[in-house]
């Protein structure tokens, strides 16, 4: 698959996880593609800098530099939207009022602890809302390709990058498969690519199992 295709596969699969009426925070990158695949479901997008009810990107001539998302891209707002300050915005996130956060990751361990803020061997000078979202959202879904550009698996036995917090995520939707996390460790919920679970296990470097309630359809 081409890279853009992979990103779309991930976004489309995540869209399936979202439910009508949910309050959702989308991180930068792949997560921003999710709304394209909602198929009529209404989700309310929150952005950390103070908006619930974010709409799509504006036309070039309709850009208002005041109105942006947390990635500092121009956005619009929809009917039913509301604006609030940063403290109130993070009260929404940290108080558990965001139903789902969809976040990019650098790594996730087999119990669902993620690393998504500090790039190794680079000065750590930005965290933004990453730790607040990991800790505060009711459900956290990671969105990323399974393998980094150097071929290493982002699903790891133990994090080697700096953790984003003790809170474990619920789901990791990658280009190859969907993984769920419980105290018993990671399980494969669904395979999205033309690959067997054995091949996938080899690729990530440890044995993967299906989730009990998952019946593979291939």
């Amino acid at each position, binding site marked *: 698959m081409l890279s853009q295709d992979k990103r779309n596969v991930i976004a489309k699969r995540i869209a399936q996880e979202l439910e009508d009426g949910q309050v959702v925070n989308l991180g930068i990158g792949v997560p921003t593609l999710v709304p394209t695949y909602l198929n009529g479901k209404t989700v309310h997008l929150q952005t*950390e800098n103070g908006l619930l009810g974010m709409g799509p990107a504006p036309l070039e001539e309709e850009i208002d530099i005041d109105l*942006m998302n947390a990635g500092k891209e121009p956005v619009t707002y929809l009917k039913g939207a509301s604006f609030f*300050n940063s403290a109130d915005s993070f009260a929404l996130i940290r108080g558990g009022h965001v139903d789902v956060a969809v976040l990019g990751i650098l790594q996730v361990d087999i119990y669902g602890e993620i690393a998504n803020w500090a790039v190794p061997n680079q000065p750590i000078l930005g965290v933004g809302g990453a730790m607040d979202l990991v800790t505060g959202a009711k459900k956290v879904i990671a969105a990323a390709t399974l393998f980094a550009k150097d071929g290493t698996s982002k699903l790891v036995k133990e994090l080697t990058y700096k953790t984003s*917090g003790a809170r474990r995520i619920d789901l990791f939707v990658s280009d190859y498969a969907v993984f769920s996390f419980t105290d018993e460790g990671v399980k494969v919920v669904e395979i999205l690519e033309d690959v067997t679970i054995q091949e996938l296990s080899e690729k990530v470097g440890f044995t993967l199992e299906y989730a009990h309630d998952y019946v593979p359809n291939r």
Partner: protein
Amino acid sequence: MNKVIESSEIRKYFKSGDQILTGGFGISGTPLTIIDELLETDINDLTIVSNNLGDNGQGLHKLFMQGKIKKAIGSFFTLNREAVIAWSKGELEIELLPQGTLAEAIRSGGAGIGGFYTKTAVGTELAIGKEEKIIDGETYIFEKAIKGDVAIIKAAKSDRLGNLVYHTTARNFNPVMATAAKIVIAEVDEILEVGELNPEHIVTPHAYVDYVIQSKYSKVGSEYVESR
């Protein structure tokens, strides 16, 4: 009672070594005119509390480039390339906080709260050296309130008393910054007579605001341009 003053008059409210709370997220909601006035002073060694240090060469970036900033407290400096370089050379101190902790710490400073416990950052590098406390079986870390000497903020409209309303996501950190400093200066696009703002819609009550200046910038397309 009229809090509206000329922008050049604000220079006397700053001094070297001040901790300055600055509203804005990127350029949205940044008090660009106030920052320009600061550039005209000879004060330095400033500690800036702001989510980031400007964007696209505007706002706090200018202040940084003029060497006026000793320390920055904020959540996201990754895209402030020059600041990152200065930090790696030991020329700039940076204190990194999760964005929600930053906002809450400033709100606390303005609300008479000494500090608070949050779950955000527990177990991470940003929790190192911070007191832990278990509350109802869950682990929290202590974060101390943040206050400033001067807060510089941007609002859409002010009446002559200093009641403020904001525009879309340019609201961001401004209302909290307005609560937590000894002197609060607001830059606004439009100045109204008292009574023109609906009391139900005012976001920052005038009690928080000491001085109001007219912004010299206006939005042209997707940019802020100095226009007056």
